[in-house]
């Protein structure tokens, strides 16, 4: 399949994770001083989970970025 230069599935995975991670991260930072009324909201889960998604997604996007042959 290399001859057909199909973009690897991991690139699409990375893209979605990076976008979702960004949205969650921004939401988490904005809510830092007044967290949502969920259980354990003091842990600011959105901030670190968003960061994790962003890092994972960013890695996949960088690693599998479709390059021109």
């Amino acid at each position: 399949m290399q001859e057909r230069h199909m973009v690897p599935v991991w690139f699409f995975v990375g893209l979605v994770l990076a976008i979702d991670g960004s949205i969650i991260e921004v939401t988490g930072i904005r809510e830092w001083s007044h967290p949502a009324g969920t259980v354990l909201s003091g842990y600011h889960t959105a901030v670190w989970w968003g960061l994790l998604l962003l890092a994972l997604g960013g890695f996949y996007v960088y690693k599998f970025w479709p390059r021109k042959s």
Partner: protein
Amino acid sequence: MNARLISLSPQDIAIIAVYFAMVLGIGIYLKRYANRGEDFFLAGREMTAWVAGLSFLSANLGALELMGWAASTYQYGILAAHFYWIAAFPILVLFGLVMMPFYYISKTHSVPGYLQLRYGESTRALAATSFAFMTILMSGINMYAMALVMKVVLGWNIHFSIWTSSLTVAIYVALGGLYSAIFNEVLQFFLIWLGALLIPILGLIEAGGWTGLVARIHHNFPQGDYVHLWRTTGSFASNPMGVHWTGIVLGLGLVIAGGYWGTDFLVVQRAMAAKDLRSARLAPIIAAYFKMAVPFIVILPGLLALGLLPFKLVPESAAGPGLHSYNEVLPLMLARYCGPGLLGLGITALIAGFMSGMAGNVSAFATVWTYDLYRPYVRRNASDEHYVKMGRWCTIVGVLVSIGAAYVVTHFKSIMDYMQALVSFFIAPLFGTVILGMLWRRTTSKGGFWGLFAGITSSIGMYVMVKVDPSKLAWIALSPGAKDMAENLYRALWSWLICVSVTVIVSLLTKPKPTHELKGLVYGLTDIPSDGGLPLYKRPIFWAGGVAVMFAVLQLIFW
């Protein structure tokens, strides 16, 4: 709309919208690669072991699987984990190491295709017709159930849920075929895990770890044992599921798991799409690791609900204002821990689960219909392009028929139970037919057909018998203390035994196929390439050993 469990913020809706845009975008992008039959129906047989393995598991991780087993855990406790552990370890390894080579080396395109090569047309026709019928109806039933959950959880209109999600699946599978289904299943795999993983992490923090959780469950439910896997299965009456360990080991671990993993084309198709035999054998073994980890995001939330929720959940029939049903366990736990953004990710996980399951059904249906029914019985010698076109159209038609089935179910809800049972009628005996065909060269065409037929009819017979007279359950499970779940396990076991017995007897009385016709199809007559020249870490048997260790450790910890 007022009774909704969760309200979504704009960030949540944005995350869901990104998901829909991406799955459609993947379908549009992959259309250019799916113009030959081999590409559209088998993804060019060029998937790596990891892609095939993750897709293999993802097709099985439907939303109903996630929510249904979380609900079952609330009812039965950790016993529900048997459906992830003993239902994964022995058979996924057997499938990868023993069965997969025959499917792969025979170069068949489907499970009914293998049956045609091994047994002939009549067995293929029986298997293909049953599979196509069941798959499409099950897809509709799952669609309805999912829409119902979205209505309860989010207050979404039931028609909106059914049409939006199913048409999205229809579009991306019709465009990119199995390529598109597999790519999206890998994406869905990540979203399911990352969307659901926060519940067990935060739940364990809140409960004070596993020990704290067990103490809370004992406090809330002092009358039952919800935290031991095997200790209570010595008799039917001593556990909330009403099962005995023999039913779990033989009925579930051997027969139901064998039928599901080894013969259900919905999952087998993903392994068949692997780029070489080693990858095809590794795919189910990779899936086994993740399958055994799934209880972390499904069973543990059910246990956390038992220990942490300040109210008790009730059966669906008793749910009403102020009372939540078992089926709402996962959404309730999601709402407990996830604020804006994270909630969208969790809901996306549920939608992704539904869509991966549906795409699995639809892509498998398109292949079986086109190659095992349309090509042999309707139009034998058409061009490859014609069959691809047929595959695209029957994807759309399959989804529309599924939608129709979903609406039928809304009027006759008991059909849902019957259909679930109908699927189980078929896969347990089919496992007997396939495994004998692969391992015993003396099995004949007539033996295969009549064994399968006897297995299916006896299974239906047992089901009807218990429906008419529930006390007959004691006959099937061999104990008056057995409950509904035991019936499923033992019915599967008996129907498999009947299938195997009839196949053996009829085979011994009829003429076998000549040896040269069985090459590449049967053990002893198939040249299976050796892994001996590969480094240890690249051999499927090495990774299969790891699954065995993981299984043993989990059983010991939660014994």
